């Protein structure tokens, strides 16, 4: 009989010795930690360079012969265009304050997932080619040759960063790894090095107006299902309109809300709210995407996709825009949209037709976050709410990275939740608000093939949810992000079974007392509401 290995031998996994410096440790592509490479037609659709069939695990990435020159020129150009980039390449002192702030490092333990080291992957090349000391002293000055291995390492680790900016909050100089990742990805895209999961939605959105590639008639018929469900639940038929000229408001939501669960429940919540208010609004099939996977690719691609929102607002002649619940969409709206595609001088400063509130904070961009809009309605007592309809839920709130660290919309959603739910519990302080942990799937990482990465990167978040589940019996994780709604159910299912995921406006929809509605026996998921004790109908 063959000799069986002893347990000690089995569990000893062969790993590189720690003594080795990181610069000399070549990247190893581990299954489940990275996404598939881009297929050529996606790149062709948006005229991106080097479309070809390739797989990250291939030895040969089929790069153009002068790839090195392209990369270095790409770096040079961006050093001249972005003060952030040049500064962040220069001023890091490697104090390590960011190291244990990254959920991907916390979850994987891979040192190259420390924000500082992820940045050093590029900084080492910067020093070698763009600083005097690096040119002269090379390795001694922390410089590193740009080789194919280094390039592969960039790809592997820049697509293991969710651009969440958590590191940036703790950095004494505000160095933002998200910015470095974004520029890193932009440079990789010069060689056609993207992921299928990002490039696909980009191509779809470019041609058809949304990430899923749904055509106008499909969008409309999808809504019919939601309209039917709302009627079944409330007895009220809401009537969303599409591409309607002369509406007062254009509403733009992430397309995930229109087609995927549990996003559609959020979408139903939007429609119920707007119907109850009698809001003069329209959806657009052309600008049917609030999210922007282009921004995970390059600034230019982000701008090309984002263009549709203002263009459509102008064509339809609306006065202003409301945006739905989405994380990176709001990073883009808050920090890029006006610069890219503004000024939106054909629109008016947003004024809520219900309360008369003038949204001064959005007076240039003319786009209001739906949580701001709804919080204002509740504050003015314009909504009749029955929070007991959410009594079967014990709710906690997950701040999305982009809305907390690239905008700061923290208290509006909390105010709404407290008004539509009776049971709300915060997660521990270090895991919410500006210190929130990422779902592990942001910035286009929510594919299936990198599930292990997502589960590990999302573990710190899940762990905090588990804590409130154990201490307060929390069973619902509310959020204001479409990627959260797509990715968190999976994360919860694995780490914290028993916790479901809902968008904010699903909870609003549950609690909203509508004029002429029938007695609610079901929530927006068509699940029976628990019998109410001494139920007095509202």
């Amino acid at each position, binding site marked *: 009989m063959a000799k069986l290995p002893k347990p000690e031998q089995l569990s000893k996994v062969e790993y590189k010795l*720690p003594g080795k410096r990181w610069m000399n440790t070549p990247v190893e592509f581990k299954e489940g930690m990275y996404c598939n490479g881009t297929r050529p037609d996606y790149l062709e659709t948006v005229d991106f360079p080097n479309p070809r069939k390739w797989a990250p695990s291939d030895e040969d990435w089929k790069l153009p012969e002068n790839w090195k020159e392209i990369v270095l020129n790409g770096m040079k150009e961006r050093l001249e265009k972005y003060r952030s980039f040049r500064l962040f390449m220069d001023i890091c002192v490697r104090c390590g304050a960011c190291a244990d702030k990254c959920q991907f490092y916390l979850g994987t333990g891979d040192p190259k997932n420390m924000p500082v080291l992820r940045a050093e992957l590029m900084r080492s090349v910067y020093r070698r080619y763009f600083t005097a000391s690096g040119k002269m002293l090379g390795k001694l000055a922390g410089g590193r040759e740009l080789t194919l291995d280094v390039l592969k390492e960039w790809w592997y680790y820049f697509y293991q960063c969710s651009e969440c900016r958590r590191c940036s909050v703790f950095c004494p100089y505000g160095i933002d790894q998200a910015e470095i990742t974004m520029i890193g990805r932009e440079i990789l895209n010069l060689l056609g090095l993207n992921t299928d999961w990002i490039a696909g939605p980009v191509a779809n959105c470019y041609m058809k107006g949304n990430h899923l590639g749904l055509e106008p008639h499909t969008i409309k018929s999808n809504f019919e299902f939601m309209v039917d469900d709302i009627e079944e639940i409330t007895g009220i038929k809401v009537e969303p309109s599409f591409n309607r000229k002369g509406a007062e408001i254009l509403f733009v939501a992430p397309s995930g809300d229109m087609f995927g669960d549990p996003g559609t429940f959020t979408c139903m919540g939007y429609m119920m709210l707007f119907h109850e208010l009698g809001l003069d609004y329209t959806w657009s099939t052309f600008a049917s995407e609030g999210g922007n996977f282009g921004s995970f690719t390059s600034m230019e691609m982000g701008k090309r996709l984002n263009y549709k929102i203002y263009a459509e607002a102008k064509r339809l002649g609306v006065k202003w825009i409301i945006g739905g619940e989405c994380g990176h969409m709001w990073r883009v709206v808050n920090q890029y949209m006006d610069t890219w595609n503004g000024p939106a001088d054909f629109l008016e400063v947003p004024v809520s037709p219900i309360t008369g509130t003038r949204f001064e904070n959005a007076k240039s961009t003319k786009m209001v976050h739906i949580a701001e809009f709804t919080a204002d309605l509740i504050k003015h007592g314009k909504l009749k709410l029955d929070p007991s309809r959410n009594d079967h839920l014990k709710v906690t709130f997950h701040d999305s990275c982009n809305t907390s660290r690239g905008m700061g919309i923290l208290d509006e959603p909390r105010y709404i939740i407290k008004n539509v739910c009776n049971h709300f519990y915060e997660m521990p302080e270090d895991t919410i608000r500006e210190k929130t942990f990422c779902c592990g799937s942001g910035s286009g990482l929510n594919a299936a093939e990198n599930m292990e990465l997502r589960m*590990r990167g999302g*573990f710190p978040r899940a762990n905090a949810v588990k804590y409130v589940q154990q201490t307060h019996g929390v069973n619902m994780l509310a959020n204001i992000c479409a990627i959260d709604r797509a990715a968190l159910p999976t994360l919860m299912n694995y780490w914290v079974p028993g916790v479901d995921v809902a968008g904010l406006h699903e909870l609003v929809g549950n609690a909203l007392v509508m004029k002429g509605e029938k007695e609610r026996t079901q929530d927006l998921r068509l699940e029976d509401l628990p019998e109410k004790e001494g139920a007095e109908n509202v």
Partner: protein
Amino acid sequence: METKLKDILREKKPAILKRWFDVVMETYPAEAAGFYKGAKNRFTGPVGYTIHEGIDGLIDGLINEVPFEELSPLLDSIIKIRAVQKFSPSQAVAFIFHLKKIASEEVENVSSAHSAIDAATLSTFESKIDDLALTAFDLYMQAREKINELKVEEAKNMVYRLIQRQNQLYEMQGQGPKIETLNLK
């Protein structure tokens, strides 16, 4: 389990816990292990924390002969982590067996001073660890299956309404008038 063995194990628990935790950590690459070992805060070092708390609870449970159903969640929390960490199934659960060796060594050290613990008593304890290992295999398989299931589930959720619509289209096919040219005005 004999009371004497229990007492010895209880007394030696801190040492056993430390050694076992170190062994588990040795299965990680040095850079990661160093970090996990140092960071055992519940929220800022969740991996180290979960593993440490998990094996702590397992040792207590084994000593106090807690029913298996109660140990299973603790084991599950560790195995779930290891199931997404690129271990082979055997590598993922092998750490359980180390407890046998560590425990018996620690017991031996003490038992010479006390009157000896006989082999039979010790082997009852060890067979419990074997049971634990078998459970760990089950949990590992469940976790892996779950990952695959989640991939499918997620893809379905993402286009839930499309599937709903597709189903209805098939039902409706062939019915109703074609309305291609009706809207020309």
